[in-house]
């Protein structure tokens, strides 16, 4: 592939929002930058999974605290 051909190819990807490029000196660096709805949807899904995992563990912690209170409550009544 010629340099011109490569540049056209990258331009198309860049216009489509699939890559971002940065030129430093003679070197143009490409990064995958899937900007747009798909990326946002994927990220939100990752964020949802993080919080879902956190809350699942929080549920267990709160369940333990409730159990502990019930046990302590019984001890006090004795």
């Amino acid at each position, binding site marked *: 592939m010629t340099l011109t051909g490569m540049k056209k190819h990258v331009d198309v990807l860049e216009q489509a929002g699939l890559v971002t490029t940065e030129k430093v000196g003679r070197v143009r660096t490409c990064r995958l930058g899937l900007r747009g709805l798909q990326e946002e949807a994927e990220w939100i899904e990752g964020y949802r999974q993080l919080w879902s995992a956190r809350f699942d563990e929080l549920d*267990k912690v*709160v369940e333990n605290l409730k159990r502990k209170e019930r046990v302590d409550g019984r001890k006090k009544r004795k």
Partner: protein
Amino acid sequence: MDERRESEAARAKNHGTVERRSERELVVTRTVNGPARLVFEAWTKADLFRRWWVPRSYGLTLLSCEMDVRVGGGYRLVFSHQDSTMEFFGRYLEVTPHSRLVWTNEEGDAGMTVTTVTFDEIAGRTLVAVHDLYPSKEALDAASGSTGAMPEALDQLDELLVSLGSTTTK
């Protein structure tokens, strides 16, 4: 406000919600099966907090967790990940027992994100809403790009582009 809370409560009843509410805001809600006083305790006592904040599947080890939960007090979480450590820190702006916590997230270099957590007890259960306000749209976008949630196929395309790039510069 009450109507909004009710609809949030209804939606969050079982599964919880995640919503990008504006260019700078993310809101997560979920209902926890317990009174606000215990849920609040789990958010404000370091030994309890560290038991649930970091999902096991993330491969992170929480090295230390210090929380001075009072207005102006600081917190600091230190994680190890492979060979490096990461720190998350900030300070508490509001501490209202059993109902509201506000803290800053100061580790980012694009400004400060403010997290507000509210606890609403409804019939022995607690609706938790976590609201993140980023300093700018760019900061939120940057955060969303750094989660490493990129599918494998895209990583491979990334590698391909890198190798193509190195070829063309020769």
